[in-house]
């Protein structure tokens, strides 16, 4: 098992000028990012859509890497997205999955069949040409440069510790100073400048 913050720290030196959709890792990535105008911490507009949003960015910006940190709860809501991504096969799309085996933001209840799902196998079966799975940080960090150097699409399933939240939503600390529509606007403007 890895900590989400450690996963993102391992990725950060390799970010380059990639667009990063941090998904449920946003609260950590905001403290690590060196280019927040190319980040898309949109929070949770509607569960299950992070993969589609990042995929759309990859289609629109074929000359720039798009790196997504998805979650298993999200992708379980939209497994069909994997076949759409695999069909288009954007070579600039890097799909990481933070699998904490539960719905952490609602108190940590397990996702269905939490400990017995091989998401890398599902991705490969959907048509992703490359898929990996890691449970420990060291081998992941070691493999990361090659994963990112090769063309996408690639799927990387990562087992991470759950960061469970039980406080009522209104009492949770707001970590993102930008609203999600401001995030989308800022990224759009940044990309328009080239």
């Amino acid at each position: 098992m890895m900590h989400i913050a450690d996963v993102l720290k391992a990725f950060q030196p390799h970010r380059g000028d990639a667009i990063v959709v941090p998904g449920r890792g946003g609260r950590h990535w905001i403290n690590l990012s060196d280019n927040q105008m190319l980040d898309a911490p949109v929070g949770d507009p509607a569960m299950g859509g992070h993969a589609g949003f990042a995929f759309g960015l990859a289609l629109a910006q074929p000359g720039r890497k798009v790196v997504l940190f998805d979650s298993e709860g999200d992708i379980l809501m939209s497994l069909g997205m994997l076949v759409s991504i695999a069909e288009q096969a954007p070579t600039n799309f890097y799909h990481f999955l933070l699998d904490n085996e539960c719905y952490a933001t609602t108190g940590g209840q397990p996702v269905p069949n939490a400990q017995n799902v091989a998401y890398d196998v599902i991705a490969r079966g959907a048509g992703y040409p490359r898929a990996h799975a890691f449970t420990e940080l060291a081998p992941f960090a070691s493999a990361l440069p090659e994963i990112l150097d090769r063309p996408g699409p690639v799927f990387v399933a990562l087992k991470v510790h759950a960061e469970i939240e039980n406080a009522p939503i209104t009492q949770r600390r707001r970590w993102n100073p930008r609203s999600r529509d401001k995030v989308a606007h800022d990224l759009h403007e940044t990309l328009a400048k080239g």
Partner: protein
Amino acid sequence: MPDGSVVALSPETVLGEMKKNGVSHVVWLPDSETNWLYLLMKAEPSLTLVGVSREGHACSIAAGIAVGGRTPMILIQNTGMMESGDSIRGWLMGLNIPVVLMVGYRGWTRHGVNADTAATFTERFLMAFNLSYYLVESDADAPRISVAFQEAARTRKPVVVLVGDEYHGFNR
């Protein structure tokens, strides 16, 4: 109302509206109205067709395409639009995405008497979501498609075009 068997909404007209409005990506799920349009879109080099397996997926994909600087259009049926409610709310309305959803109006009869609850609830759904919409039944109505694109761009909101031509134009 023109006789639908004589005057219909042709797929060529719809494709022309897409091109006129700079559509780069059509995010879609096939329905009973769109096969001829599909063949035309597939042959059009300026369009990328992005197939989805459930209509709600189209919303987040279109949002990413729009934020990335291109022009998506969503092409689905009214049944799928209703299934997509939370994604329309969160990904399209919540991120201020200017996008046109072209929605096949399954069950539309024009006279208010229908046997299909998909038609019964379509406009009620649109009103509940406060989504602006235009009805297109024939080629003569096609300029409304451009009106929808202009409104989406001006308001930075999703705008719906209801295609009330289930058995004619798109199928030839």
